[in-house]
C-alpha cells in the first residue's frame, strides 16, 4: 500500500496481548483514515450501549494517509471512543508531532481494548511494541510524565499521556500529546484512565511510502507556494497573534460568549485577545509537524500571582476561561490554561463548567459553604483554584469534574448548562450566528465547533462571507461543511490550512486540493465527488452510532437560553437561534426522517447497510 502504512496495532490491556493486523484496503479506501477509521472500528467493535468506563469500550487512535507526510499541516490524528461525559461518540482531534511519529513507526492506527490490572504504558519503538509498568508515573502531571517517559525510552520519542484528571476520570479529561497539544473533547482522557493506560510512547524512523512521489511533491509545492504568496506581505494573523485573534471576529459580531452565554459582548475583551497576548506574554509561535502557519503559542507570565510558563491560550480557551467566566485577567486565564495542560483537562468544558457554577452562585442556587469560596463573575483566583481542584477531584472540584450539565442538574437548573448532547459549546453564541446553532445541535459529539465550523464563513470571511443572521440558507451549508470536516479530519490535515488552500474558494468548498494530495499519496484515484461522499459516509456512520447509543432527533437541541432568550445587547440584539426552522430542512437534505434517522436509501447509497 502507498499513503497508508497498511498496519494497525491492536493492544488488549486485559490480556497484555499486542498484535499487528493488516489494514483492509477496502476500509482504507472507503474511510480514508483518522476520523473515518475511528467510526469504522467503533461501529464494528463497540456496543453503542456499553459503559464508557467498562472493558467493552475501546479507544481508537488513528492517523490519516497525509499524517506524517510533507503535506501542509499533515500533523493530525483522531481519538475515537464512547464518551463518558455525553454517552455519545467522541472523536477528538490533535496535532503536534506524536501523530506523525506513529506513522513513521509504520502504523496507521492503534486499537486499545480491555482494562489493565495495573497502570501501564505502551512503548512503540519502530516495529516493536510492549506494555510497561507505569505505577511510578501514576499521579504525575502530563509534563512530568513526558519528561520521565522520554528519559526511560528515547529522548526523541513522542508521547500522548493523561494527567491526574484522566486517572481520576474527570469526565472531560484530555489526552495530551507532545506536552501541550490536546485531544480534548468529551473525556477521551478519562476513558484512557479507566483502562489504566497512562501513556502511549512512540518512536519511528520510517517514511510514509507515496504512490506518486513527484506528483505529491508538485502538489505540495503548489499549495505551499499559494500560502507563501498570500502571506508574503500580510503574515497570517494566526501566526502573529494565535487563534485568540478570533476574539476580534466574535466580539465585533456580538457573539463572544460572556458570563455563561448571558451576553454576546465582553467589556474586557481587549485585555484578553490575541494582540494583547502577543504584547504581554508571547515567547514564540510554535508549529505542529509540517505546518507553515504556526498558530501555537509558547507563553510566559513573568511575575505576579499567576507566574508560570507553558503553551496557550487558544481562542476557545480565552472564551471559556475568560469571557464566559467574566474574567478579563489574561494572566489568570493563561494560568488556568497551564493547569489544564498539566493535569490533562479540556479547557473548553473546564471554563464552561466554572461559568455555570458562577451563574448558579450569583443567582443564589449554589452557596459559598458548598464550594468553600465565593465564585463570583470575574474572579481569576477562584478560576485557577477551582481548575486545580477539578483536575484533582478535590472538594467541590469533585462535583465540577462531572461537567456543567450534571452540575446544573444537581442544583435544579439543568437549563443553565450551555451544552448540546451534554458537551459544552465552543466560543460562539448561536443567537447571532445561526449556522453555528445548527452545527452544535447536529454535531455527532455534541456542542463542538469543529464538526463543520460555520464561524469561518459566518464571522471570519473564509473562504467567502455569508450573513451570520440568516437561517434559511444555512442547512445546506452546514451539511456541506460537516462533510468537509470529516474529510479534512480523515486525511490527517488541519482545517486552518485546508479551508483556505485545499478547497474551492466558495461556500461549497469542493475538496480539490485534498483530493489531489490524497491521490498522489495513496494512488486511490479518487474524484472530488467520491471524497465528498466519503465525508458524508463518515458523518452518517457517526450518526448511526449516536442513534444506537440511545439518542434521538429530540437530542438535536439547544438550551432555552439560545432558542428563547433574545440576545440582550450588541449587534445580535433581539435575536434567538432559529433551530426549529433549520432542523427539518436539514434532515430532509441529509436524507434523514423527521426524527433524524438516516433513510434506508441514504444508507444504501453510502454503503452503510
Amino acid at each position, binding site marked *: 500500500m502507498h499513503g497508508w502504512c497498511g498496519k494497525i496495532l491492536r493492544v488488549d490491556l486485559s490480556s497484555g496481548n499486542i498484535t499487528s493486523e493488516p489494514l483492509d484496503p477496502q476500509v482504507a479506501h472507503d474511510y480514508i483514515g483518522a476520523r473515518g477509521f475511528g467510526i469504522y472500528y467503533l461501529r464494528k467493535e463497540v456496543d453503542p450501549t456499553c459503559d464508557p468506563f467498562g472493558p467493552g469500550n475501546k479507544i481508537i487512535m488513528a492517523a490519516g494517509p497525509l499524517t506524517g507526510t510533507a503535506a501542509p499541516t499533515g500533523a493530525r490524528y483522531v481519538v475515537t471512543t464512547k464518551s463518558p461525559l455525553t454517552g455519545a461518540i467522541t472523536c477528538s482531534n490533535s496535532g503536534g508531532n506524536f501523530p506523525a511519529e506513529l506513522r513513521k513507526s509504520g502504523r496507521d492506527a492503534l486499537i486499545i481494548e480491555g482494562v489493565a490490572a495495573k497502570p501501564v504504558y505502551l512503548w512503540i519503538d519502530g516495529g516493536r511494541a510492549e506494555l510497561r509498568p507505569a505505577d511510578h508515573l501514576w499521579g504525575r502531571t502530563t509534563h512530568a510524565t513526558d519528561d520521565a517517559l522520554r528519559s526511560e525510552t528515547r529522548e526523541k520519542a513522542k508521547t500522548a499521556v493523561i494527567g491526574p484528571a484522566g486517572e481520576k476520570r474527570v469526565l472531560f479529561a484530555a489526552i495530551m500529546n507532545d506536552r501541550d497539544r490536546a485531544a480534548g473533547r468529551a473525556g477521551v482522557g478519562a476513558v484512557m484512565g479507566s483502562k489504566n493506560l497512562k501513556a502511549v510512547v512512540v518512536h519511528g524512523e520510517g517514511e510514509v511510502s507515496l504512490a506518486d512521489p513527484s506528483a505529491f511533491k508538485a502538489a505540495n509545492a503548489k499549495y505551499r507556494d499559494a500560502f507563501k504568496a498570500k502571506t508574503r506581505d*500580510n503574515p497570517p494573523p*494566526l501566526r502573529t497573534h494565535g487563534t485568540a485573534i478570533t476574539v476580534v471576529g466574535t466580539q465585533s459580531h456580538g457573539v463572544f460568549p460572556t458570563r455563561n452565554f448571558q451576553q454576546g459582548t465582553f467589556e474586557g475583551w481587549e485585555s484578553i485577545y490575541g494582540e494583547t497576548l502577543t504584547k504581554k506574554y508571547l515567547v514564540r509561535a510554535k508549529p505542529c509537524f509540517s505546518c507553515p502557519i504556526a498558530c501555537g503559542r509558547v507563553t510566559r507570565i513573568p511575575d505576579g500571582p499567576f507566574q508560570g510558563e507553558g503553551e496557550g491560550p487558544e481562542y476557545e480557551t480565552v472564551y471559556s476561561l475568560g469571557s464566559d467566566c467574566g474574567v478579563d485577567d489574561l494572566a489568570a486565564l493563561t494560568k488556568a490554561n497551564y493547569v489544564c495542560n498539566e493535569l490533562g483537562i479540556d479547557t473548553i468544558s473546564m471554563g464552561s463548567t466554572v461559568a455555570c457554577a458562577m451563574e448558579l452562585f450569583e443567582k443564589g442556587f449554589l452557596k459559598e459553604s458548598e464550594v468553600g469560596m465565593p465564585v463570583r463573575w470575574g474572579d481569576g483566583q477562584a478560576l485557577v483554584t477551582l481548575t486545580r481542584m477539578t483536575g484533582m477531584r478535590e472538594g467541590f472540584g469533585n462535583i465540577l469534574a462531572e461537567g456543567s450539565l450534571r452540575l446544573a442538574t444537581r442544583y435544579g437548573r439543568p437549563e443553565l448548562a450551555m451544552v448540546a448532547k451534554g458537551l459544552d459549546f465552543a466560543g460562539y453564541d448561536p443567537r447571532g450566528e445561526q449556522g453555528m446553532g445548527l452545527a452544535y445541535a447536529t454535531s455527532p459529539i455534541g456542542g463542538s465547533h469543529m464538526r463543520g465550523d460555520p464561524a469561518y464563513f459566518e464571522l471570519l470571511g473564509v473562504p467567502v462571507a455569508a450573513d451570520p443572521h440568516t437561517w434559511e440558507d444555512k442547512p445546506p451549508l452546514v451539511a456541506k461543511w460537516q462533510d468537509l470536516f470529516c474529510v479534512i479530519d480523515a486525511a490527517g490535515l488541519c482545517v486552518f490550512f485546508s479551508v483556505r488552500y485545499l478547497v474551492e474558494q466558495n461556500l461549497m468548498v469542493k475538496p480539490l486540493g485534498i483530493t489531489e494530495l490524497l491521490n498522489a499519496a495513496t494512488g486511490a484515484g479518487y474524484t472530488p465527488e467520491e471524497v465528498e461522499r466519503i465525508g458524508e459516509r463518515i458523518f452518517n456512520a457517526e450518526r448511526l452510532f449516536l442513534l444506537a447509543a440511545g439518542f434521538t432527533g429530540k437530542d438535536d437541541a439547544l438550551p432555552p437560553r439560545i432558542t428563547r432568550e433574545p440576545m440582550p445587547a450588541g449587534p445580535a440584539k433581539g435575536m434567538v437561534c432559529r433551530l426549529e426552522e433549520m432542523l427539518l430542512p436539514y434532515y430532509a437534505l441529509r436524507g434523514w426522517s423527521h426524527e433524524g434517522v438516516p433513510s434506508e436509501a441514504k444508507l444504501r447509497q453510502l454503503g452503510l447497510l
Partner: protein
Amino acid sequence: MRVHVHTFANIRDYAPAGKGLAELALAEGATVADLFAALRIPATVEAVTLVNGRRADAATRLNSGDEVTLFPPMEGG
C-alpha cells in the same frame, strides 16, 4: 461626518494615525469604498468589514457616528 474605525492585525498598517481605534472624517454620504480610499488600503488587501457589527460591502453608505471594524479574513477558532 465622523466615523469610528477599529483596525486589527495587518489592517492596522492603514489605521488613521496608526491607532487601532480612531476617528475619521469623511464627506457626507461616503461609502465603505470611500473609507478604504481615505485609508489607502490597496485593493489587494483582503478585509472583513463590519459597520455597527453588521457585514458591509464597498457600496455600504456610512452615517455619522458609525462604528466600522476592519480585520483580515482568518482561519481562527
